[in-house]
């Protein structure tokens, strides 16, 4: 990957003028996986992206997304987000329905990432899918996801605690994505791995990858443990409003041969989401709608701080009317390479 690869200074203080104000700008021109495919049927369902309403339904083999109910007479203003008749660009792929939020004439299917652990034309089994909601802006959810040191405290039972012999964070980025790579050595085996997976070794080495798409909020997570299996995760993190993030999730359960684990691990998603919600919900009102204030950081926050910087660059470009994708888009979309996992074929 020819992207920027860096480690960070031990300590840093964000500038109060750095304009990190989550929930104040709606990045556009991106595909948002707003629903799992089986959820979309003949009767329309409603989804929101940045407070914009999408009615989504099926007609035979075709899928539709519009700013109005199919049985209603359209009355709202025509905008460049639709085709002139209130219809949004929509695609069904990887078991998700993706809607385009942005200039309708700029929607290109190749902007959807290449997801190696999902079948392009088939949904995952229902036990591998679900949805959680976070009562905060999606920028804070993404920062939380890029910040893998929080799992030691918030999700310690499932991911192990903080007492590693060695703990290093690196990040990579493109103009559209940020990847966090955490390498730990001599990390205590998590209670879940010990009790459910039967891992005997008290310590393990691990490399965890988190990869986020800045515009849409879609993220991918995968870990490689020296002593235990792991399953990759895709989570949508769709900004329904400045105060509510929809997290449709799906696990690549085919990546493990351990059938019991493939069935059991997805059940932890709602528990882990509740743990995240316990910190994200109170955090929300301290960022959203507040004037910028400095945050203190360590080298473990490097990826999140870099996300803030990349997010700011995109906002500045879009404020100038530049919604284009730069040539490095392909580098951030090759998830098999980024997450170091095999393709499902």
């Amino acid at each position, binding site marked *: 990957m020819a992207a920027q690869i860096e480690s960070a200074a031990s300590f840093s203080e964000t500038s109060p003028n750095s304009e990190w104000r989550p929930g104040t700008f709606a990045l556009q021109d991106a595909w948002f996986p707003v629903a799992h495919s089986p959820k979309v049927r003949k009767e329309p369902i409603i989804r929101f992206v940045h407070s914009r309403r999408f009615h989504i339904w099926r007609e035979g083999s075709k899928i539709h997304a519009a700013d109005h109910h199919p049985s209603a007479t359209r009355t709202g203003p025509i905008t460049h987000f639709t085709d002139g008749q209130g219809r949004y660009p929509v695609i069904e792929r990887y078991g998700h329905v993706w809607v385009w939020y942005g200039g309708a004439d700029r929607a290109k299917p190749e902007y959807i990432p290449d997801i190696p652990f999902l079948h392009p034309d088939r949904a995952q089994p229902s036990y591998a899918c679900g949805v959680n909601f976070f009562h905060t802006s999606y920028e804070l959810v993404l920062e939380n996801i890029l910040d893998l*040191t929080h799992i030691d405290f918030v999700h310690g039972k499932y991911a192990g605690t903080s*007492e590693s012999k060695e703990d290093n964070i690196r990040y990579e980025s493109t103009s559209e994505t940020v990847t966090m790579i955490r390498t730990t050595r001599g990390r205590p085996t998590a209670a879940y791995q010990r009790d459910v997976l039967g891992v005997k070794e008290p310590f393990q080495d691990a490399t965890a990858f988190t990869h986020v798409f800045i515009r849409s909020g879609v993220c991918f997570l995968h870990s490689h443990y020296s002593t235990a299996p792991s399953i990759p995760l895709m989570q949508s993190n769709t900004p329904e409003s400045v105060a509510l993030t929809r997290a449709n999730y799906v696990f690549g359960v085919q990546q493990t041969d351990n059938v019991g684990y493939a069935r059991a691990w997805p059940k932890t998603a709602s528990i882990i989401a509740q743990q995240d919600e316990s*910190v994200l919900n109170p955090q929300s009102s301290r960022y959203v709608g507040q004037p910028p204030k400095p945050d203190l950081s360590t080298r*473990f926050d490097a990826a999140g701080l870099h996300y803030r910087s990349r997010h700011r660059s995109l906002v500045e470009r879009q404020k100038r009317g530049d919604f284009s994708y730069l040539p490095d888009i392909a580098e951030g979309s090759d998830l098999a390479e980024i997450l170091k996992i095999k393709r499902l074929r």
Partner: protein
Amino acid sequence: MISNEFRHWQTVALSSEVPAGKPVPVVCGDRDFVLFRDSDGTCRALADRCAHRRARLSDGRLTAQYLVECPYHGWRYSGESGACIAIPNLRSDEKIPKNYRVQAFETLERDGFIQILLGAGNGAAAPRRLDLPDMGREWQGEQYFAYPEELFMPTLVDCPSSLLALSGIEILDDHPFGNPTVNGDEIAIEYAAVKKRRTRRPPKHVPQDYAYTLQISASRFTARAALYANGDTQLQAAALIIAVPSGQRLTRVMWRGSGRADAETQITIECRNQVNPVPIRASNTFVSRTWAGTLTPLAGEAASGG
């Protein structure tokens, strides 16, 4: 709202609300504090907002070294100075900068309440006296009201029965004993009170002699209520009531009380579970308007006296 302009002591909690070994959140106005006890039991107060990612420290835990640990990433803070003492997984050559800290507040624990020193500047600030007479029987409590804090004390002086519950005693809001007296930022008023009747039958005659006097004196956040028996002028029970704004929509009320242990009727003065609107509808705002300076009931007396 709680002022940040001048230095003052603000009562924020009952002592009993802060047990050893556990951080406790307190919201006062639009500010969040975390309270916890040190090794010697001293109550410490810090801003309840981690300097790292603004998580609530009060959702964390107290370590064996009596440091409060953030639940999000495990940053640990000293209660005395607010300094960040430890961050997990740093190398030994990575020393935490001195500006890594949260705001720490001076605390004072007396009379069963915890006060913290707020506001800017170096001006003198005297802690509030919140003592009660020792009458051998004590109680305390706390309660949230979905009622604006700025209306709590005015309602208490206009219509005490809407907010107070006196065991076995009925407060007669429509029967004040004399005019209110205003002294600085404090107002005092007395109301008649009688024993509650056990039946719903109306009395055969209007009682001319009331058995009790309820004396209320209130300032911005603090009120004292005292119940005297009119027959022997003995104090039966007293309570100290603190009301502080908690966020934008709630008022947090704390109280401590003391009462005669030897009396035949053991009376307590406590806050109701919620505001009773019925007596408010029947009451007027004479007392609170006097307090606010929009009424001058003693003007004629003052004129004749002057």
